[in-house]
């Protein structure tokens, strides 16, 4: 159940990001839905789910838009895995931690992209990439995350209630 829901979230978010959201850009910047979903899944379901769904989502991006297969898969996988460590200290109703982690994840993702694809190419214009791409993306992503994270949390809470009820009836 969790697995199917996690896959659907990745799939739908990827589709939205590459179609609808890339038409509704603000100043040419698209929010990074996949970072929100990967970080949230890691945070809600733990390291394993975060890591695997990040890998799958990253692979989608790689197949469609990647120049080299595996770069985005690696970045998203690490984001999912690292966020999974914070599962233990996540309390329901606490939104400061998830939002902070999503901001951190997106900043890390931006730097990962810059490092892997621009820095090693010999492009050292870091200030531009920070202020022109990474930070606007973080701001836009954060705004979306404020609405999107509670929704993801809500769905998985429902699934947990549903499954717990299921077990009770069997016993």
């Amino acid at each position, binding site marked *: 159940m969790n697995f199917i829901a996690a896959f659907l979230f990745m799939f739908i978010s990827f589709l939205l990001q590459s*179609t609808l959201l890339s038409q509704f850009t603000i100043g040419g910047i698209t929010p990074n839905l996949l970072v929100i979903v990967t970080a949230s899944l890691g945070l809600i379901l733990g390291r394993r789910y975060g*890591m695997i769904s990040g890998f799958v989502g990253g692979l989608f991006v790689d197949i469609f*838009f990647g120049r080299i297969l595996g770069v985005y898969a690696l970045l998203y996988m690490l984001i999912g895995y690292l966020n999974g460590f914070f599962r233990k200290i996540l309390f329901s109703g606490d939104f400061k931690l998830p939002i902070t982690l999503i901001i951190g994840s997106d900043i890390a993702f931006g730097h990962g992209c810059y490092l892997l694809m621009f820095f090693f190419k010999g492009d050292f214009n870091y200030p531009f990439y920070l202020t022109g791409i990474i930070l606007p*993306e973080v701001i836009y992503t954060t705004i979306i995350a404020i609405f999107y994270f509670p929704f993801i949390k809500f769905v998985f809470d429902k699934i947990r209630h549903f499954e717990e009820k299921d077990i009770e009836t069997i*016993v």
Partner: protein
Amino acid sequence: MSPLIKKKREKYTLPNRYILLILTIVCVILMILSFSTNILSIPLNTISGYTLVPFQKGLNAVGTALIDRAQNLKTLEQVTNENTELKRQIAELTKDNTLLQQDKYELTKLRELYDLDAEYEEYDKIGARIIARDSGNWYSGFIIDKGADDGVMVDCNVIAGSGLVGRVTEVGPNYAKVVSIISDNANTSGMILSTGDLLIVTGSLRLMDMGVIEYSQLVDPESTVGVGDKVVTSNISDKYLEGILIGYIDTVNSDSNNLTKSGTLIPAVDFRHLEDVLVITDLKNIPDISGDREY
């Protein structure tokens, strides 16, 4: 739980850090494989072509419809203002039109001179719609809804209106991936139409916001190249057909070596508002350099 129910045996699961290690190795192998060979792209493209592309087509249509809707909701006041503005423009345009008719006469002569545009129209073209854009903010590639089934091949040139957009880098059965010339990893060999001087057009993420792209390695010792000169794809490019308009020179600067010049040019295509493109299904014929060449 009742003790009669047999306790489920603990399933052995791999620790998370080993899964992470395995997936990381998979990623690295994928990177190496896709960097050095091409064997992965065909099966993956076919799978994704049948699973993701239909969804992208549908969602993109929804997005376009929403944007259209938003534009319809312009207030009446704006429309009235526009009307007066437009009436004024009509008067101006009528005047311009007469001038343009004269220009057209000149253009016809020039076309004969270059014998270029006729060639341009001879190419087989098919229309395609952009159905998805690069999901990140780092590159500007996109997916179109025509693929191998419609005759699109890798390295097909993509144009919009009159200017060059980019070229196809990967083809699936019903979609194709296009890398645009403004993308940060794209280099295009171009030439100045009036003088025939060659230059290299390089996409740049930094300049994209300003609506210009870089060029470099222009050899022009007599300084004949000026602002507004047309830049077209060169005859020596091995991917692009000759004579497709790239843009117009915006700035010219001398390099520190005093031999070459570089600067920026304004692309002929409005990349921000691209929706439909034309794919030229003819490929440039390149003699096989590795084999015996016929002269």
